[in-house]
């Protein structure tokens, strides 16, 4: 008996997309800071605080016990935390990403730079930026690992899913800076979107020839406008970013990449299915 996933739905797709955008926005923030572009760095750093916090908020609203949502903040410190659960590591990573982004960004914003005195030491900022970027990459990977870890849903239980999540992070984070008109992100939008589309297509094909539930998911996703639109938009984003090097092209590619990431994530989540005995 094949049953489609209705446990983790649209809110979780939105939550994971926010995390994807934040994950590589913080990497770009560090790169811009290294280049001396403090304003651009502050934007990515601030998004590294706001978007993961919003993602945790969405996750909290989906719980059956919203008052216990505090448990999602650094759950590693909770004495009951189950360390074999990816959710514990993921939520801890998200919490640390918020904290590190806050520490990195505060010295870059005018009213706070007098309080955030650590910003005057370049070595400290370098360390914060590096750690923030590392946690950004981890958070992008986590949004795939959390799905791929267990065998319950065969469509998700694949090594392709964390890879897909990583490249969706590259596409969405770079796409955000593309939207802001930063042309240097163009080739990364192309790379992230192109590889995300390619990996998703390969994943769909492999699922088609896989277990019954995975084949059901792949068939469903392939007839769903969300998946087809997501792949088409990701390929379009890659093409526009690769061949149009000017600002309007990068802005368009950025927008296309972010929409593509939302659609691919939606189809991946909503077409997950079990094959119950």
């Amino acid at each position, binding site marked *: *008996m094949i*049953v489609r*996933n209705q*446990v*983790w739905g649209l809110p979780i797709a939105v939550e994971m997309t926010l995390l994807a955008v934040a994950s590589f926005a913080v990497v770009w923030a560090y790169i811009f800071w290294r280049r001396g572009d403090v304003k651009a760095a502050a934007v990515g750093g601030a998004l590294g605080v706001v978007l993961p916090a919003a993602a945790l908020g969405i*996750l909290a609203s*989906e*719980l*059956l*016990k919203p008052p*216990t*949502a505090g*448990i999602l903040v650094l*759950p590693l410190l*909770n004495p*009951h*935390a*189950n360390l*074999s*659960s*990816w*959710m*514990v590591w993921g*939520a801890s990573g998200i919490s640390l990403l918020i904290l590190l982004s806050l520490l990195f960004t505060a010295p870059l914003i005018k009213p706070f730079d007098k309080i955030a005195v650590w910003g005057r030491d370049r070595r400290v900022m370098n360390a914060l930026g590096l750690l923030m970027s590392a946690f950004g990459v981890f958070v992008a990977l986590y949004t795939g690992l*959390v*799905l791929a*870890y*267990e*065998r*319950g*849903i065969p469509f998700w239980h694949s090594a392709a899913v964390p890879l897909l999540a990583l490249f969706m992070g590259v596409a969405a984070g770079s796409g955000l800076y593309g939207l802001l008109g930063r042309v240097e992100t163009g080739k990364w939008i192309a790379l992230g979107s192109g590889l995300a589309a390619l990996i998703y297509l390969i994943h769909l094909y492999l699922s088609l020839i896989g277990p019954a539930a995975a084949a059901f998911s792949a068939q469903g996703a392939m007839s769903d406008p969300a998946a087809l639109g997501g792949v088409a938009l990701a390929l379009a984003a890659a093409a526009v970013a690769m061949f149009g090097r000017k600002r309007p092209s990068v802005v368009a590619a950025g927008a296309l990449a972010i929409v593509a990431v939302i659609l691919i994530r939606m189809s991946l989540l909503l077409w*997950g299915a*079990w*094959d*119950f*005995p």
Partner: protein
Amino acid sequence: MRPVFVIDINKCVGCRSCVAACIQEHGQVFTAAKPANRGKPQTVKLRTWVEWRESEDPPARRFMSSLCYHCEDTPCQRVCPTGATYKTPEGVVLVDKDLCIGCGYCIIACPYGSRYRPEPHEWREAEEKPLVKEAEAGAAYGGVLFKPPVPNKWAFRVDAVDKCTFCYHRYKGDGKLWTPACVEVCPTGSRLFGDLDDPSDPVAELVRSGVAKLARPDLKTGGRVYYVGL
């Protein structure tokens, strides 16, 4: 003691007395359930369910009971972020309702559809048409059997993931096997409960002799629910 559950599909007549007994024992909200001929605890939102499987050639109807398989290798326990899912020394998998935050990760991980989440909107809808009202209406015709759930810390709660407990609250902690509510009421003896550690237990013998089999041995989770005639 290692309790084991055996379901003889050949004896099941699909009366669903087991489902009714479970609902009464644990205070599940029947009006929030989604009964369907094909379904699992996850989809019907009850701890146990009996689905009807029909075949055309030859025309036949079989009844397949499902509940938590109490796996040896427990995916639900592995993914639970708060440690709410745990295993008793007897191997019964339970949910600490106070620790469960209702994230649903265990439902995602369970390959058998044995867990369900009481969605808040469904709960509100259920509250608007309480079972008690139905009982009152039935009073004119001699009354409807309705008793409050047996108080226990694994009973149904709207703010936590729910699943079969093998009626663990009936265990007195004395090392003696108990009888789950569904086994107690099964009119045909299709549902059986035994102790794998008792060499003279006829139910455990069905497992030891290979007559009773796991539903999905390919998933390699092991389990304490076996089927005869699957």
